[in-house]
């Protein structure tokens, strides 16, 4: 099936099987390998992207369903000259990643949260991340990074 969509502001087209998942189309056809696959049950969030502005798990959507849509992936988050976005920079500043495998999904999830809720509480950040698993960081610095990206002071407990 022939499909076309706008990915990170660029028009793309492809010819896919009906069973091709959006994540596989992004990774294999478009070579946008920043979107990761961590599970096969839509539980881990490593594949999180935005479709028409909404946070979506790219492993739980067929590529054909995104026909005509606007898709944003991790590759489109930094500025064209490579400058990191405020969220990406906060992840680096607060050591919000270790192996980096969950990270694209975390950044996309965080971006979606901050768009809806520019100053989330700690509880709101943790709740928003319920669909994203990180095995490395224990979430401490991810939560801290997302709160910092929203311009908030860190609670005392997050000092370390």
């Amino acid at each position, binding site marked *: 099936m022939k499909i076309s969509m706008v990915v990170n502001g660029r028009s793309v087209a492809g010819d896919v099987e009906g069973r091709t998942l959006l994540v596989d189309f992004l990774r*294999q056809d478009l070579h946008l390998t920043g979107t990761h696959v961590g599970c096969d049950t839509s539980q881990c969030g490593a594949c999180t992207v935005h479709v028409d502005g909404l946070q979506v798990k790219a492993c739980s959507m067929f590529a054909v369903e995104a026909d005509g849509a606007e898709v944003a992936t991790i590759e489109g988050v930094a500025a064209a000259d490579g400058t990191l976005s405020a969220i990406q920079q906060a992840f680096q500043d607060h050591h919000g990643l270790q192996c980096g495998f969950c990270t694209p999904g975390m950044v996309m999830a965080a971006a979606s949260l901050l768009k809806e809720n520019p100053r989330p509480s700690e509880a709101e950040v943790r709740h928003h*991340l319920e669909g994203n698993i990180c095995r490395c960081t*224990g979430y401490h*610095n991810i939560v801290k990074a997302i709160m910092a990206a929203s311009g908030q002071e860190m609670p005392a407990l997050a000092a370390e």
Partner: protein
Amino acid sequence: MPKDSGIGASSKRREDVRFLTGTGNYTDDINIYGQLHVHFLRADVAHAKLNGVDTAAAAAMPGVHRIFTGADFEAVGGLPCGWLITDRHGAPMQEPRHPVLAQGKIRHVGEPICAVVADTLAQARDAAEAIVLDYDTLPAVIDMKEAVKADAPKVHDDLTGNLCYDWGFVEDNRQAVDDAIKGAAHVTTLELVNNRLVANPMEPRVAVGEYNRADDMHTLHTTSQNPHVIRLLMGAFVLGIPEHKLRVVAPDVGGGFGTKIFHYAEEAFCTFAAKALNRPVKWTSTRSEAFMSDAHGRDHVTKIELALDKDNNFVAVRTETYANMGAYLSTFASCTPTWLHGTLMAGNYKTPHIYVNVKAVFTNTVPVDAYRGAGRPEATFQLERVIDMAARELGVDPIALRRQNFITTFPYATPVAVEYDTGDYHATMDKLIDIADFAGFDARRKASEATGKLRGLGVNCYIEACGIAPSNLVGQLGARAGLYDAATVRVNATGSISVMVGAHSHGQGHETSFPQVISEMIGIPEDQIDIVHGDTSKIPFGMGTYGSRSLAVCGSAMVRAAEKVINKAKKIAAHLMEASEGDIELKDGRFSVAGTDKSVAWGDVTLAAYVPHNYPLTDIEPGLEETAFYDPANFTYPSGAYACEVELDPETGHVKIERFSAADDFGNIINPMIVSGQVHGGIAQGIGQAMLEGCVYDSDGQLLSASYMDYAMPRAEDVPFYTVDHSCQTPCTHNPLGVKGCGEAGAIGSPPSLVNAVLDAINSGGGKKVAHINMPLTPSRVWAAMQ
């Protein structure tokens, strides 16, 4: 004043930029022109006699190139076990053959039986469904104590029963321990389970095999923590490929936690099939496959006894542990419950008599091997639970009981064959009491009680042994490998540096922390220094990363290599300044002659080494590149004290972790930010083990927890912000950096304080007293225990 570069600085991680922008190079991101895809048909029963495999219909399906079965691997070696254990009576362990694809028998759910190689993965999967297996199901043995009974079904027909070994340690202590326990004033006995876990790095395993007929060169790209070890094991023991014809590359790896140490069937398969088909062959694990094919962790059933005299001094510890090996021996499976567990049974305490018995058992389950902490969490959990239980039985304060028995003089030789070089267990406990705000606990407990909740506070100490070594000792203990590491410091003509290291980074931030050390030594900026790792064609023969050995062992090799470089550079500088070598000093990137104002920059010396126009060629070779292999004199011994505070809803059994505090002694710290991050991650994995995670088999050997729908991983809402401190520092005395290692501490230290906290909460209420609950402490288990 915190430093902004070099040793002790929280330098920001340079690797983050590629991970944050989606430009990392994980193994599944690698696609080689012309590659084929493999799908493994895996066993869906735990135990069966495999009579035959009919692949004819599948082989005719679209896109299929070839279907491999066990018969294709008859001339190939089995997957080797890296550690030979000698049992109590001096006999070697039983070591079954571990075929790449099942031969004659199926021994666990998930065992690969056939491998379908096709143009696309979808075609390979479709074809696998057309394969007809002819097998007779056999009764499976899952429970370890059932497995060692004389009439139990045998996992391996050619072995004597299902006992791999019966290990006694130290066997000569056995009688003295029995006597001490008989004569003790009080003995606390605890039976417990250390639950089976799945490591679950977020990146599933991947293998891509490649073969070049023109030069007979094999390349394997794989998600590994130790590419040279994989090259050695797969080349020498499985496929018989000489090392110079085999390159193993582990690029960006998305977490390991132990599970990517081991050599797996899929790696050998893809390498073998690439040659057989003369095409690249790629396999990417699904998460469900990972649950059935990654080595599992823990899985001990233990009885521990702690004997005390009338003054509450510990006099003896005796344990009997059943350790599950699963159906085959994974690479380091045999070592984990023995040398990594038994040697830590002294903990932080001066117990004079200790005896450890470990029975390793084969069952029809996925092989078990080292998982974050490996053996040390199992030792710590038993010891710290039994101490808490003893304190409760004796009506004494659990912290006071620990303090009274702390080891306080170093070096200290334990009765279980290791010597702790340094430590200060009172200092970490003092620090813990401070950072966890013990003083405010009573008020917080009253506030909880006012809302109908119970609050508990649990503590524990831990000690671990990191940087496994030295080679001659581990050799005596049965290791089939050396345990040094290696580094090459290559200085470029203009003074920038590439360091090739044997350690492997899969989240630990080596690209940032290793240059901090070199920058400190030479005095040039960190961004002038790069780390090369993960490719056997580029790095010296090193052993990779596990057991928190990266800086302690490989970092020490790097220091030694840098010292050689600096020594040679000083000779060149002496020549350039016409001074005597003994007078040359290196500081802030300049060589100077002591007591004069003569100096020459680092870059001028390095340039002279590569452009040797004015150069003492008769005395010194050109160039500036040195390699060092470093074999440590001992393990390192990080230690610490942890506290967990929970609030428990007695109506539902639901436990909320309110506070978690960790005071660790890691010796010297290179990058405090990275160290804190390692502790956070370890704590979350420990919380996972204590509260959520557990691998569940039914009695037929079906794996019931084979996806994230059934295996509960800790998520952001399950954990609090942690309070961690590593300001207590007793530097390691036998490595040049004085570092001890921090990667596993959190996972070792956290489960006992959690369980202790929950029991403290339960027992603070007016209801039934509860002595122990096995992990994971799910609401239903907690609630049931309280009824």
